[in-house]
């Protein structure tokens, strides 16, 4: 038989904030009449040290097993009073708060009688719920002190280096045979003589020197099970001659840094691939790189162009039917940076930039000023320019919105500033990790503003262009940021999760599957038991406790701890009457 319910009710004056409107003594006397209430008291500041001490003493003296505090909003002091219960040796979840300040005294100052009546009812509702509360334990799970990084581009490398320097084992899985991703082809970077390759090398050298780093090249993640703190990962490594090996890893967190693909223009889009005089910006940066096909010499279609046209927003801003609707962020600055490097080496070259919006944001505006100083000519378009290959040159034609005229400029070569598209693996990774992606096809962060490197699934973090276009500096910063998030997990021996989550009563569950379809966190799965019967299972590490599954569960088998049907229903009933 269950123990006798013994409730203590504590009504706070909050100075005059409550007591100035609500007749606190009357509320206390009323609370004493409620079933199971064995003690009811008031105090000027219940959250103060003496107030807390009073509750602790009463818990011991009156053998209280439920506590109700009628005071301010639980948003403020629920954790405080839960702590009080814990200190007194009572389960912190046997606590309920009645908000008689924000929801009562402060908003009904002119009607003291109504406010007092309401305060009594709020206490009655809290007591009704408290009576049905159950002790809950935070859910704990051991954490594996290692991290999986998927993708060896700059973001993945930065994350790996940070975490190994921080003292954790990192498994870096890269699909290709080399590390560095797209950055190695970027040539010389803006404001420096460093190349993308230099950046990659400096990171890789330090990583390779650290015994905590475990690099898997030619490898892909095949399967991921488990959840935050304890992911079980299967990696397949290609060994050549069609042979493969499987590697099993066990990590506490995962960083996804799968990068992007440069937008590949369609054949004929701005003359692409119909003449060797049209190249993409990525191809041009490769040409200009010391290790490129021309050892850094500017040669396009076999000749050294005397004039160049850059067309921006190729593949972006819906400029052509194939183009993506979003902005690729880095192409304006990357184009201008490249132009300035070319101008340094070949001052006589004429450069025309066809653009829609010049997006050299922040300090990169500097590149725009410098380009103007270097007599780069800018032509603004609304409608994408057309590129017409002629015998010896290429003609770029566009309607210049500034002078309101259609102009045609003959140039020796055309550079298409192509944007970024989600890496081909994005979809596969997304499904495997059960993380979302947005309409743009990039991985979706938990919150665009404040949780930009976290996936919706706990324990999985996102770095670099995997979530959307970024320049190299931003990608590197996001690698460190994702590493910091991963470190917050793997630094702990155990992680704790709030217990106000969904739980299923298996004796009542028919495995109908309604709950599983609704869960935004993929925390519910339908398991098939030995007898072939289906049953719902909640992964308590994934559940965030919204309770939408409980509201939908047609058999009442799914309940949310702390907000069970009978608990909420008791509050509803108590709104209107006592027991």
């Amino acid at each position, binding site marked *: 038989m269950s123990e006798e319910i013994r409730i203590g009710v504590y009504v706070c004056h909050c100075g005059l904030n409550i007591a100035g409107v609500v007749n606190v003594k009357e509320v206390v006397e009323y609370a004493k009449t409620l079933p199971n209430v064995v003690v009811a008291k008031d105090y000027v500041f219940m959250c103060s040290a003496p107030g807390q001490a009073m509750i602790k003493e009463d818990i011991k003296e009156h053998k209280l097993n439920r506590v109700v505090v009628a005071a301010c909003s639980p948003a403020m002091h629920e954790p405080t009073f839960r702590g009080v219960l814990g200190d007194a040796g009572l389960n912190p979840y046997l606590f309920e708060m009645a908000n008689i300040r924000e929801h009562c005294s402060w908003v009904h100052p002119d009607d003291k009688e109504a406010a007092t009546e309401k305060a009594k009812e709020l206490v009655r509702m809290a007591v009704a719920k408290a009576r049905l509360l159950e002790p809950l334990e935070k859910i704990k799970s051991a954490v594996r002190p290692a991290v999986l990084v998927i993708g060896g581009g700059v973001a993945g490398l930065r994350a790996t280096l940070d975490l190994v320097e921080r003292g954790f084992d990192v498994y870096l899985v890269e699909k290709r045979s080399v590390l560095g991703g797209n950055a190695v082809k970027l040539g010389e970077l803006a404001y420096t003589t460093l190349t993308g390759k230099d950046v990659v090398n400096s990171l890789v050298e330090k990583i390779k020197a650290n015994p905590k780093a475990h690099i898997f090249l030619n490898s892909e993640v095949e399967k991921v099970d488990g959840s935050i703190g304890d992911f079980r990962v299967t990696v397949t490594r290609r060994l050549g001659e069609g042979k493969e090996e499987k590697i099993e890893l066990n990590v506490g967190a995962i960083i996804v840094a799968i990068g992007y693909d440069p937008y590949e223009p369609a054949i004929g889009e701005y003359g692409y691939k119909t003449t060797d005089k049209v190249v993409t910006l990525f191809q041009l940066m490769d040409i200009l790189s010391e290790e490129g096909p021309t050892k850094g010499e500017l040669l396009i279609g076999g000749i050294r162009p005397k004039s160049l046209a850059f067309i921006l927003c190729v593949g972006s801003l819906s400029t052509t039917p194939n183009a993506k609707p979003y902005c690729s962020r880095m192409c304006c600055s990357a184009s201008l940076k490249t132009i300035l490097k070319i101008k340094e080496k070949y001052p006589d070259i004429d450069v025309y930039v066809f653009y829609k919006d010049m997006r050299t944001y922040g300090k990169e505006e500097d590149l725009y000023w410098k380009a103007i100083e270097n007599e780069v000519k800018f032509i603004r378009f609304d409608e994408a320019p057309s590129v017409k290959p002629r015998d010896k040159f290429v003609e770029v034609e566009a309607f210049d919105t500034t002078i309101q005229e259609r102009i045609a400029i003959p140039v020796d070569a055309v550079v298409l500033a192509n944007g970024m598209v989600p890496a081909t693996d994005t979809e596969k990774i997304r499904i495997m990790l059960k993380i979302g992606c947005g309409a743009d096809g990039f991985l979706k962060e938990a919150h665009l503003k404040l949780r930009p490197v976290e996936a919706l699934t706990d324990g999985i973090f996102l770095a670099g262009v995997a979530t959307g276009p970024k320049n190299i500096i931003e990608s590197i910063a996001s690698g460190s940021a994702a590493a910091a998030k991963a470190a917050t997990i793997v630094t702990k021996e155990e992680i704790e999760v709030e217990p106000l989550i969904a739980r299923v009563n298996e004796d009542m569950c028919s495995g109908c599957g309604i709950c599983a379809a609704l869960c935004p966190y993929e925390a519910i799965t339908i398991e098939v038991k030995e007898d072939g019967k289906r049953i719902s299972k909640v992964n308590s590490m994934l559940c965030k406790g919204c309770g939408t599954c409980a*509201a939908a569960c047609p*058999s009442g088998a799914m309940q949310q701890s702390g907000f069970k049907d009978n608990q909420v229903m008791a509050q509803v009933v108590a709104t209107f009457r006592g027991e």
Partner: protein
Amino acid sequence: MSEKPKIALYWCASCGGCEEAVLDLAEKVLDLVNAVDIVFWPVAVDFKIEDVEKLPDKSITASLINGGIRLTEHEKVVKLLRQKSQYVIAYGACSAWGGIPGLANLYKREELLSRAYFEVPTVVNEEKVLPRTYKDEELGIEVEVPEVLPRLLPLDRVIEVDYYVPGCPPTPDVTWNAIQALLSGNLPPKGSVIGASSKALCDECPLNETKPDKLLIKEFKRITEFTPDPEKCLLAQGLPCLGPVTRGGCGALCIKANMPCTGCFGMLDNVSDYGAKALSFLASILDVEDEKEVERQVKEKIADLVGRLYRYTLPSSKLGGKVFKR
């Protein structure tokens, strides 16, 4: 010789199907008759109320009552049976929750009487006579005609009910399980449902395993729109099958006939309002984010929400029926 347990059977507002259901036990009826003494069963045996009145209190082991409480007479008889019985069993959907006759609670008593006695095309009642108690001059007696109650009530709103046997009607297996439980005395806590499953129909539905990983639908469908694939969960095909919210134990008879469950086994132990819960799960899986579209689908595909979702349980619902302005 030890006395056999005494059993009473009675019907209130019901279609008679529950009476048939007892006979559907087939040869097992003979086992039943051998095992018990039937002391009252107006439809089959010629005992009168007076015979019951003469029995000592609590002398009947169990009374199986079907049908909802619609008339003052029902009220009177069930109270008598309560007094004379150890166990009262609400047998069948109508008795347990009001059943199909309970849908009358969407109308006022006056509307119902007017419809039944004046408006139905086959009725000829020029003098607008309504059933009432009157004095038969020839016989010289008062002819007592029971009164229609303002609302139909489930049995447990009138007398205490010990156990419930669900179904419209209860299937032979469910009936036999219940009777066996009663006779063996191996009974769950008072107020329980006996004879059926403790889980929803999906648990025993042969199509449960065909459900997709994400049971979401873009549109409700009407059964008249298409022939459902008999190998695939009907809900997943867009039919608002009520299997998930309905107690199992029927053997998924409708599903086997390629028809969606309409809910005649009622709600499960943790549910207090069948229709609300049915609504909640159906709305949940309708993967539509536009309010207008939800409204359209309800209007065009479900039409009569209360009739559909409270087909067997309206009088036992939280509101009990339609709320009329005074």
